[in-house]
């Protein structure tokens, strides 16, 4: 729809923009550089502020969230570790996250392999459909899985929770494995075939080791998103089974407390440790294709 009047309007704006020269510099500091620095710091502050602040509260002796803290204390952490219910929640969260991760990785890796390596009808549809569990409001997935799993008496069990959260983890798992497979240099496989290796040998000795970083990144991603999921877990748990996010949620109903901040910080440390490990060992950003 490029009418003539639209076109002149476009170029009128363009001539205004043409006068703004961002490559100018004031006293050696480039204008573009300064604007980027300002934009980036504001946006990243916005993104990270709630996380940073949770850490700050957790070492603040005052329970009114005042800032800056007058001194530093570890008593909220001690309070967490003293209560067996928090410890039980941590253990439970680790259990179902590991189970869900295993399920998600096994399913997603073969699906991703099929998408990346095979030609079949509906391949593109399947490729797009791997996003589906992310493409519906999460709360609906939680309720749907509750109603479905209680038909088999699986709600409020470790198995039910793991089966349900594996669904939620598959988009993350499939996408990171697919990214790894798309970066894969297939000429190495060709070389293995030419040197006389058969499919199984090539897979075990060439393909699998080369995909391993991508698989581990996918596993860590799946673990972490499962571990921190509330919307699905909150439906599938009940008396005696309270994962960490659900316990935080339940505590918040009685008002916030620095103990929650301490638990949140422990979660942050777990997640950061996972990310740093992946990044150190395999370059998570690279494995995801963002380089």
């Amino acid at each position: 729809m490029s009418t003539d009047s639209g076109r002149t309007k476009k170029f009128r704006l363009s001539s205004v923009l043409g006068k703004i020269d961002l490559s100018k510099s004031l006293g050696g500091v480039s204008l573009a550089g300064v604007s980027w620095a300002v934009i980036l710091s504001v946006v990243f502050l916005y993104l990270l502020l709630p996380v940073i602040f949770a850490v700050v509260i957790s070492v603040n002796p005052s329970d009114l969230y005042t800032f800056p803290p007058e001194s530093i204390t570890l008593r909220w952490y001690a309070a967490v570790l003293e209560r067996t219910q928090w410890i039980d929640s941590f253990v439970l969260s680790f259990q179902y996250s590991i189970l869900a991760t295993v399920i998600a990785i096994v399913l997603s890796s073969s699906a991703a392999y099929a998408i990346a390596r095979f030609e079949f009808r509906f391949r593109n549809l399947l490729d797009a459909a791997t996003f589906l569990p992310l493409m519906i409001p999460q709360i609906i997935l939680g309720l749907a899985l509750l109603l479905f799993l209680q038909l088999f008496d699986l709600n409020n069990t470790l198995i039910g929770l793991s089966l349900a959260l594996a669904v939620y983890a598959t988009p993350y798992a499939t996408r990171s494995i697919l990214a790894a497979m798309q970066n894969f240099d297939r000429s190495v496989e060709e070389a293995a075939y030419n040197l006389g290796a058969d499919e199984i040998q090539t897979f075990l000795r060439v393909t699998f080791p080369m995909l391993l970083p991508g698989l581990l990144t996918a596993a860590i991603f799946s673990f972490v998103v499962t571990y921190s999921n509330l919307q699905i877990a909150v439906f599938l748990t009940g008396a005696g089974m309270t994962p960490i996010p659900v316990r935080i949620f339940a505590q918040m109903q009685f008002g916030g407390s620095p103990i929650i901040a301490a638990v949140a910080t422990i979660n942050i440390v777990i997640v950061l440790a996972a990310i740093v490990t992946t990044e150190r060992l395999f370059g998570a950003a690279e494995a995801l294709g963002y380089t």
Partner: protein
Amino acid sequence: MSDEPGSGVGAGQRSGVSDEPGTTVDASRRGGITVPFLHDRLHGLIQRYKQESYAGYLLAGPYLFYMLLFFFVPIGYIFLVSFYQNVPAGTMEPAFTLENYIRFFTTPQYLNALYVTVEISVISTVFTIVVSYPIAYFIVFANWRYSEVLVLLVIAPMLVGNVVRAFGWFALMGSSGVINQVLGVFGVQYTLLNTMPGMVIAISSVLMPFAVLILMSVLYTMDTDLIDAAYNLGGNRLQTFLYVTFPLSLPGVIGATLIAFVLTMGTFATAVFIGEPNIRMLAPVIYRTTSRDLNWAFAAAMSFILLAVSLLLVYLYTVVTSRNQPEGSGI
């Protein structure tokens, strides 16, 4: 794995005549494979199935089955349950009644929650895209040494989870929180907790990582020759961005908008910590109806309405955007 004799024989013959170098390995060269029997069986299976048109389905089969069982069937099941009759004891009775839907559409409280949910979702989505775009653009095009660190900084909050961030915002926005203290310095008395701007701020920070990652993936695959051409033709940075880079990135903007919108429609932790009790979104209402009132049929009906409204708006959005797309821009 299905063992259809007919197709198996056919496939076997085909692989017999094929002249693949990998099929002619003698046993002595199979280093590392310790179970020759299994190896031969597996090798035979691979040979038989890899040329089949359904080989991809065989590999994706477990995944497809799992998604069918634990995603599509449960979603279909809540649609069914939404017509059931609620029985007060915490169970429900199979029936076909529109009672649940009628109750929703005749109670102002529920309609209002739906309206607020859509309103917050639209505003938060727009806000999210506006703040996410510069980050994605910078990471992809700036060639900065620490861009990879920025990627990790974007991903990290996403992995920390909604609950932790909602709690962080709750503490920041409270009447004794930092935001109030900072505003107090400028003589402004304004508490963000339980307000619409507070909701948008908190929700958008949750959505940002998703938006940034989607925008980045599109910006990465963009044809940079076109951008170079714009510079060569004398465009400065702003002109090039507005007339070349931004229009080319529209598929990413659209994709990010869709994900952000749908995710906000189901906002739960933030809705409870920041919005309630003044601002009621639909997700907490669904949760309470399920877990406190034990009225599963009504909760199912509300979920289905939420899903239908989300999909309808997504559909309208894609129709509008695809109509306004210039030809050949990739959508």
